[in-house]
């Protein structure tokens, strides 16, 4: 009964490949997010979606494209992977799109390694 689940847990791939990370939440939340944690453990927001609509889009390369087929799913597709994309990617969800009254629930992260 995992609340926010993301797959795969680990992803190792070569430069130039295209890969996807899937995320699903069963909390009934309206808002979902992608965060990136770099090698120094620094966490930074990438995107957020509310009810399938993009509401936050930080300065992220166009090679990253989020897709939300419904409000329970937010997938992250990455084209032409580069070495610098190696990181842990966290999916999260919250009930309140403003984040003011609803803490984020995080998935367990996907460790992406680009060789």
């Amino acid at each position, binding site marked *: 009964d995992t609340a926010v689940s993301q797959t795969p847990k680990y992803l190792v791939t070569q430069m130039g490949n295209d890969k996807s990370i899937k995320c699903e939440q069963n909390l009934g939340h309206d808002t979902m997010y992608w965060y990136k944690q770099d090698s120094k*453990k620094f966490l930074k927001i990438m995107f957020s979606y509310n009810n399938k609509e993009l509401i936050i889009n930080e300065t992220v390369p166009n090679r990253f494209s989020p897709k939300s087929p419904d409000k329970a799913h937010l997938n992250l597709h990455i084209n032409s992977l580069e070495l610098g994309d190696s990181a842990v990617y966290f999916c999260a969800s919250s009930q309140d799109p403003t984040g003011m009254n609803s803490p984020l629930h995080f998935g367990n992260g996907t460790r992406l390694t680009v060789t």
Partner: protein
Amino acid sequence: AQTVTQSQPEMSVQEAETVTLSCTYDTSENNYYLFWYKQPPSRQMILVIRQEAYKQQNATENRFSVNFQKAAKSFSLKISDSQLGDTAMYFCAFDSWGKLQFGAGTQVVVTP
């Protein structure tokens, strides 16, 4: 733009002792939320405690409590009666309108 600063990269504490982690932030907003998240070696991000900026009373959650000083823009976390399971990276975070911004983290190591 908001920034969150955690000035202690690592803190070590003995079991049953108390440790305080510092966090300062910078914002021009008046209404916002502050959080402490914990990330153990399992990599999972776990909410420890949260504070609403318009509430003067400091939040408490079992052995975890905060000292929120709004004027000073300070939000420290106190862990009392530390346990081995508290060993983790602790992140202070600021949320205004859905964009959660994190500090660089403080690694807490609890020793027997």
